[in-house]
């Protein structure tokens, strides 16, 4: 089996996908968080500033989901097929809210009428909240496992996805995105909105710490299989420790009003938590609650070595380009938001 840096191709591609999803969480996470907080801003001008803080970048951020999805499809078609067809209804709802988020941003500013703007404000915020929760629900189900039968086909009922653990992970995701979004907006705003956001950031991080503690407790008590890896390889325990330290650092930075650093640490937290997830799962990608034999792993789900090799080449060429455009756009729109005639 071909290897690179001592890792086989499926493992490498597993890491690539992990990197893409954490890139998506970090980037679209602040858009979604900003959207989730949107209705807390009461003044028309505040809402416009908040919207224009994500205005030039949300679309590029959403593309990370398209790329991560494409990479999952390409690298692990069996996972893609089983996960998406198994979770048919949640993914359809996800699409519904994704469309509404995009459309709300696009259309809100196009009319002056109060009811018009209010309607799109509500749909923008509801869509952002629902997307955050749904992402967490999918993650929660991946963590506890789903009813996968022969040939990778889901054989349960779709309502099973709304189990307490998955919902709890969903709410935790919402809390983390809200913190992240508030910190992002703090970098882009001034005056009263800024003052309001510093209170919201404080509340959001408390909300996150509470929900995250519950998830951790729930995991330790009810889902022992997720901790096996850490028992086998105790040195890996350093990762969750770092994640906890990173989380603890966020309220400290918020109280010191170092919001930019806080934002960096909420991004680091997301990456570390996804590393924890990856450690817990690897090499399984979809855990079958029916029979271990039906587990979908990176080995029985991966594309051929040839195909993975081609895609690793594509990723190696493409990733620096993507990072360069992303950096260029963020640099162009650096600093506090200024509204002009091209704004939303």
């Amino acid at each position, binding site marked *: 089996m071909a290897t690179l840096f001592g890792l086989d191709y499926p493992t490498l591609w597993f890491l690539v996908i992990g990197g893409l999803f954490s890139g998506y969480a970090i980037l679209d996470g602040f858009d979604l968080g900003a959207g989730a907080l949107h209705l807390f801003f009461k003044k028309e001008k505040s809402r416009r500033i908040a919207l224009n803080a994500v*205005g*030039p970048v949300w*679309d*590029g951020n*959403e*593309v990370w989901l*398209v*790329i991560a*999805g*494409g*990479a999952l*499809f*390409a*690298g*692990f*078609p*069996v996972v*893609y*097929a*089983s*996960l*998406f*067809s*198994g979770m*048919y*209804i949640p993914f*359809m709802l996800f*699409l*519904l809210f*994704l*469309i509404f988020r*995009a*459309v709300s941003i*696009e*259309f809100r500013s*196009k009319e002056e009428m109060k009811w018009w703007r209010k309607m799109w404000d509500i749909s923008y915020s509801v869509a952002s909240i629902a997307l955050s929760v749904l992402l967490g629900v999918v993650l929660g189900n991946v963590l506890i496992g789903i009813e996968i039968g022969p*040939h*990778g*086909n*889901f054989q349960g009922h779709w309502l099973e996805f709304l189990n307490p653990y998955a919902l709890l992970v969903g709410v935790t995701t919402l809390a983390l995105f809200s913190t992240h979004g508030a910190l992002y907006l703090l970098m882009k705003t001034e005056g009263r909105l800024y003052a309001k956001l510093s209170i919201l950031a404080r509340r959001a991080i408390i909300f996150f710490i509470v929900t995250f503690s519950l998830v951790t407790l729930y995991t330790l008590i009810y889902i022992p299989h997720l901790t096996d890896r850490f028992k086998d390889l105790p040195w890996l325990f350093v990762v969750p420790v770092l994640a906890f330290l990173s989380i603890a650092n966020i309220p400290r930075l918020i109280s010191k009003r170092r919001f930019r650093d806080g934002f960096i640490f909420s991004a680091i937290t997301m990456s570390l938590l996804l590393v924890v997830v990856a450690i817990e799962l690897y090499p399984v990608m979809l855990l079958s609650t029916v029979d271990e034999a039906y587990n979908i792993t990176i080995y029985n789900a991966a*594309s*051929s070595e*040839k*195909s993975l090799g*081609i*895609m690793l080449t*594509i*990723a190696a060429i*493409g990733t620096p*380009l*993507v990072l360069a*455009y*992303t950096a*260029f*756009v963020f640099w*162009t*729109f650096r600093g506090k938001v200024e509204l*002009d005639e*091209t*704004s939303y």
Partner: protein
Amino acid sequence: MDVEILSRIQFAFTVAFHYIYPPLSIGLGLIMVALEGQYLRTGNKEYHVLAKFWTKIFALTFGIGVATGIVMEFEFGTNWATYSRYVGDVFGSALAAEGIFAFALESGFLGVLLFGWNRVSPRVHFIATLGVWLGSMFSAVWIVVANSWQQTPAGFHVVGEGLDARAEITDFWAMVFNPSSVERLIHVWLGAFLAGAFLVLSVHAYYLLRNRHVELSKKAFKIALIVATIVSLGQLVAGHASADGVAENQPAKLAALEGHFEANAPADMYLMGWVDKESQQVTGIPIPGGLSFLLHFDFNEPVTGLNAFPIEDQPPALNAIFQFYHFMVAFGMLMIALTLYASFQWWRGKLFEQRWLLWVFVFAVLLPNLANQFGWFAAEMGRQPWVVYGLLRTSDALSASVQANQVLFSLIMFFLIYALLFALFIYMLNKKIKHGPSEDQLLDHRSRHEEMAEAAGKF
């Protein structure tokens, strides 16, 4: 209704709705690059104003395109799980390349294109516009490559059997340059240029008829007319090459396009007609031996007909395929006639004097858009009963774990959202057109002399 038909309707509906927007974005992108290029070259502010105006409309088409585009990516997994498992190894690299090379480029620069007018220099802005346009062109490359692989698979081998069978890539470049991808890509690009150019023609013809933005509109109309004339003629060549390819690679589809039943006989070409599948008769206006001539330059050369294939391998919706194909061709011909006539009038110096012609252009925007839709309907329905031609049947490609009521739910959901989206799109488009280009910034730069002449003219 069963899962298969519901899933097919849902995919057809969502992809057809999506495909209203990308061709407009690609075509408008080309015009915007031309306008900004002209502005950089000549320094004439009018081009700047036009570029800004069309960017606003572009933002609308692009935004809805992005919002509706991700739906199909998801549907591969949700509705067509067996297909995803089958093609993932091959198809995946094209999709991944699309994401990383195309979408990241276009959406990365989009922010600068839309919101960067006051933040970056005109030269950097031009580069951003070019980046967005090239990104949209590349995304067409990879999606057409993927679809062409479904029409004419190449560069792969099949591993496993039955439910676990899947195609594995053996040669990336053979997959990318499969027998139909280049000709179909050019056909798709040109179709997109026409969609954009005819929208520009339509809107500026309307302004000219209403006597608004006259000088700006004449400039934009001429640029778009040049694009539309060259491209509609180019489409004749590209379309012919595409049909030749279908004859060679997908004979059953070609036979369906012209309603040619006899297994091995000279084939007629119909200007219009009606296909009766039961009696195997086409009623209409034929050019006897026309199809034979088009493919082999000989009216008597036999062409493989539908009866050469077992009934289960023939495309089922024969009359619909025939109609979609013939309307596409007819609309293409109309565009050629219209743009050539308008170019001739321009040469005579009488382009803007014929109001009826401008009115025709106002409505002609429907021609390329319908032709794009109909062409894809003919191509995709003509590929049936296969989802991957000759390898995987559509009926075998479904998700085993999805039930009909779930698909019915999502189909109704998409129908409702897209109805709302389309209404908003038309409303916003109309509003932006009514508002028109902001000529305020031109005033400061106009010479005093002109202003005085204008003021004098008012008295």
